[in-house]
């Protein structure tokens, strides 16, 4: 464990120290990223968590833009620099514009009437309540989203927010660093990291 201000709070496992069941994530010189490198300290946790994380964040029903709106907004609300930046870069490849990205990461509710249609406005208001609210989601907010999604998608979106919150707290607490590739992708769209993450 390190105590440096900006350093990760745990050593990140490298290829030569990868536990037996985790070693496949480093095959052929692949860098699996800091979440895998941290979880690999407990290989059985990595084995259990990774399939869930992959499925929960990818989704089966939600389209990529919807998924990234949910993940980036929740991550911004939770103040997770790693997830906001990493999924900010992914969102750009899922047809989220740089201005939409900046608005998702700003304080306050995302306004309707702009690039977001009625469904996305309802979705983002619902994400705000699920990720940052206290207790039950207000009936009005839930009803507005239910007008646009069926039960299966609602389950998927709820799991998506829940999994994002888990990762937000995991990555923030352990101070996991965003990759150079992520920062380069954002810079290529004219976005500086401080515009998205404090």
């Amino acid at each position, binding site marked *: 464990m390190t105590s440096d201000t900006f350093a990760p709070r745990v050593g990140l496992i490298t290829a030569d120290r990868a*536990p*037996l*069941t985790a070693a496949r994530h480093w095959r052929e010189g692949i860098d699996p990223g800091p979440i895998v490198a941290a979880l690999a*300290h*407990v*290989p*059985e*946790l990595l084995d259990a968590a990774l399939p869930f994380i992959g499925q929960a964040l990818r989704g089966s029903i939600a389209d990529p833009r919807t998924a990234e709106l949910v993940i980036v907004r929740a991550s911004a609300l939770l103040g997770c620099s790693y997830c906001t930046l990493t999924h900010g870069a992914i969102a750009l490849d899922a047809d989220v514009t740089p201005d939409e990205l900046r608005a998702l990461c700003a304080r306050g509710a995302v306004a309707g009437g702009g690039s977001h249609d009625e469904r996305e406005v309802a979705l983002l208001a619902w994400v705000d309540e699920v990720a940052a609210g206290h207790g039950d989601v207000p009936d009005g907010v839930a009803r507005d989203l239910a007008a646009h999604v069926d039960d299966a998608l609602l389950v998927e979106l709820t799991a998506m927010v829940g999994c994002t919150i888990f990762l937000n707290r995991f990555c923030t607490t352990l101070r996991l660093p965003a990759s150079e590739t992520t920062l380069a992708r954002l810079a290529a769209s004219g976005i500086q990291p401080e515009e998205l993450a404090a």
Partner: protein
Amino acid sequence: MTRIMLERVREAIEQGLIGSRLWFYANYHCNLACAYCLTESAPDVAQRALEPDLMVELAEEGRAIGFTSIGVTGGEPFLVPQMPELLLRLSSVLPVVVLSNGTLFTGKRLERMRPLGERDVRVQISLDRSEAVANDEMRGPENFRKVLEAIPKLVALGIGVRIASTLVWVDEDDMAKLCGLHRSLGVPDEEHVVRGVVRRGRALTEGLGEPAGIAELGPELTISADGAFWSPFGPTVVGGLVDTDLLVTRAISPLSMPAETLAGLVTGSGYSGPIDDRFT
């Protein structure tokens, strides 16, 4: 854990794909600081000891799964205060071999070893060279003398003694003398184990021995305070940090969890057994 999964472990043990001995790292601290130590054990390192009750519980589970013997190593296991009594309990579950530097068998501790003479317990003591100077150079001052004093006392109690010689290289003349020595101490040839230095732990730092990973080491489920490992050569320490390249699971209880994961690695990864018997 399903019956089918546990059967897979049992079959892997019966087929020799997984070693039939279940290993415990009783602790990590030691009264010596040998040059080739796998675990950087020394008097001032953290003990990281397994609870004796847990070891007995895991031994019982191990027997139910299909393991046929117990190995206890460390650190120096006999620095664990209740080790003689723990060995008595473990030996009521399965036959036991305990690895020791042989320097602590005096006074009350030796007397507490007496009941083990009637049990299937063997003490494997390290002795590397036939002469004190050469032996103690690697293992520390007075080691040779203490070992030579301890072995006849254990033999006299009826306790089986094995001698393990860890050699950087084999000197034929010295080996002949070493064999003469162990015979004179009451230890027959079949209880003399000669093995190479594994380049892990302090041996890695010192540049000694041969590299050893999954390809060279046979799978023998090994439980330590840091988790379950592929081999007793797995939970090595470099720079105070436990190596994780041979880590199977952090979970050690129930034993079925690491045992099943190890069986999965052995039977599902194309692993076909050790290709090098230097370290077994």
